[in-house]
């Protein structure tokens, strides 16, 4: 039975191209399906162009939701990237 995990973070900076790439590279390393949700928009975290299309900006809340055997690890990793990458911007 697949494990589910979810966590939400408020961005302290905009989600630019390089952090989006880091998110997708990390997400692709997990077998869990991982989605990012901002407002009404929800995308596959493993698709970097979809993540960029979210246009997530400072102050917005991003929810990371994973489903699969390594869901918890995936959510922890992506929340970590969102917390550190958007803090410096770029």
């Amino acid at each position, binding site marked *: 039975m697949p494990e589910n995990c979810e966590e939400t973070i408020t961005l302290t900076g905009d989600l630019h191209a390089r952090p989006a790439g880091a998110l997708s590279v990390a997400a692709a390393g997990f077998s869990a399906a991982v989605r990012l949700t901002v407002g009404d928009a929800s995308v596959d975290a493993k698709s970097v*162009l979809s993540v960029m299309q979210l246009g997530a900006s400072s102050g917005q809340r991003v929810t990371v939701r994973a489903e699969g055997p390594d869901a918890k690890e995936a959510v922890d990793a992506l929340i970590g990237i969102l917390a550190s990458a958007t803090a410096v911007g770029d």
Partner: protein
Amino acid sequence: MAATVGIVLVSHSASLAEGTAELAGQVGGGAVTIATAGGTDDGRLGTSIDKVSSAIRRADTGGGVVILPDLGSSVLTVRTLLADEPDDLPGPLEVADAPFVEGAVAAAVTAAAGGSLKAVLDAAQEARHARKL
């Protein structure tokens, strides 16, 4: 882990190919081999079979290579090369039918994550459907 998939960017413009490689490489986190074949042999706008051939060899690290042409005769040059001397080149090789910048970025991220040749090709080609707004 298997060797990562290499990426070749073929453009009429050397600077366009280099700039796209720089962007895709950085978004991919630097963990991917991207080689460029931009411009003609004498530095003008255009394409060069020799440059594409050389770029394929540089991009190959054993996991296959996905080639992204920008437009027009870039596609023709790549197809001519693959039709003429497939035995002389490392392989397997795939040509992506994809927008140049978006395809390169998506391919780089998937290759950096250790994706298969098919996964990298699919990522590039799915960029056809990516919206910016």
